[in-house]
């Protein structure tokens, strides 16, 4: 992973963000797809999720998850890929189109209109979960007993 270029690191981060996005929200932020053709039309399949024995040992197969993948080519020939959790084909098509659009020079509008809000909302969701968890953290206190009290 250390050998990735800056572009690859950014692409990796946004593909993850798009995969984790809620399909309805992505549709709201990105209602109109650019002209495209399918290199690989959206396809629903499964990915075998692996775990590690004892969290850190050798791998084992835990079970599958549903995943939809898609590859698009825009009019100018730029290709975008998507692998997204679930079975929503429009989610995969939108994610692939955004992956392609972000490779163009004029990517800042997409970043501002779609990726930034997704990132912000995900941050809010994660913080809300962490804050609820924090409220259930046990604060032990010790009752002092005996002569030394």
């Amino acid at each position, binding site marked *: *992973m250390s050998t*990735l270029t800056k572009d*690859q690191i950014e*692409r*990796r981060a946004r*593909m*993850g963000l798009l*995969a*984790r996005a809620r399909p309805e929200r992505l549709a709201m932020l990105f209602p109109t797809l650019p002209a495209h053709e399918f290199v690989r039309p959206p*396809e*629903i*399949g*499964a*990915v*075998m*999720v*692996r*775990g*590690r*024995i*004892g*969290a*850190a*040992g*050798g*791998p*084992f*197969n*835990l*079970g*599958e*998850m*549903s*995943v939809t*993948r898609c*590859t698009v080519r825009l009019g100018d020939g730029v290709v975008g*890929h998507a*692998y*997204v*959790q*679930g*079975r929503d084909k429009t989610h995969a098509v939108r994610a692939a189109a955004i992956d392609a659009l972000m490779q163009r020079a004029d990517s800042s509008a997409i970043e501002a209109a779609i990726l930034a809000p997704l990132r912000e909302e995900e941050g809010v969701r*994660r*913080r*809300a*979960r*962490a*804050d*609820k*968890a*924090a*409220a*259930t*953290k*046990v604060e*032990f206190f010790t009752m002092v007993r005996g002569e030394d009290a």
Partner: protein
Amino acid sequence: MYVATKGGERAIEAAHQWLGEMRRGDTEVPELSVAQIREQMTLAVNRVMAEGSLYDPDLAALAIKQARGDLIEAVFLIRAYRTTLPRFAASLPVDTDRMEITRRISATFKDVPGGQILGPTFDYTHRLLDFALMADGNAPRAESREADGSPSPHILALLDRDGLMEPLAATDETPPDLTREPLEMPASRPLRLQALARGDEGFLLSMAYSTQRGYGRTHAFVGELRIGACAVEMDIPELGFAVEIGEIELTECETVNQFNGSKTEPPQFTRGYGLVMGQSERKAISMSLVDRALRWEELGEENTGAPAQDAEFVLYHSDNIQATGFLEHIKLPHYVDFQSELELIRKLRREAGSDDRQEAAE
């Protein structure tokens, strides 16, 4: 022996129509939506995903609705569906150290980095029916407190650092997959864990309980139980690097068990491991106890003949879909098999000179 018989089509169709009507129930009562099941019957959804071995909350909720709440039937529907999906690839092993934690407790240490986080648990409830739930009420709201962002490292890693834990070897061997090759004995630990992860919760609970009651005792402590969301990463062949393809909820249990040592090695605690899709701590704890019991040979322990030590017994009976398939098939027509049994018993009775009531039976 099976012989095709005809004549049941009309009856079967009518039976299925009635099933549909019964599924819907009283039409005066509003129909349940799949989204309602997904959001409000989440632990049932989690169980169907874990035992169906497919993480997809919408499909699990649909299966529960279609199965009228019969969870094994719902698991059956999910298992049937998953066979229709092409397998894209396998993920990288999930990194549960980076889990976004909703619950994390240890029964072995009170003060642990990251703290004890109870999360949305039934523990400490009084198990009294809450009649307020029978009335429409306002949605309850959870309390919040600003999280300090401190990491929650695996607790057993702390013991590991002191050399008190059995070490783990982080290999990257491709694990065996029982959905691709038949489950054969002897089963390696990765194969056993795959079978246990999709095994029936009730069966694993009973097996684990039997070890606690003395049938293959392993002296287990829950070193750590954690529940939360975990990123799933996969190598994307088109790109040549891995990206996150989603996030799944997992329950992980690590047990600390009694020692193993030898003339050359000092005693060390041993491990049992459980990892289950969704929030399912009863199953994760059960899995880790059964995993540990099955390791008797590798750890040089005595085989006491306990059921939980018998990998063949455990693994060949843990799958509720195989079990229910074979069990329930005996209710289907076996007219010809039974005819031969009837003939045999009549012959035996004739030979024994007690065929006088044969006429009456016919």
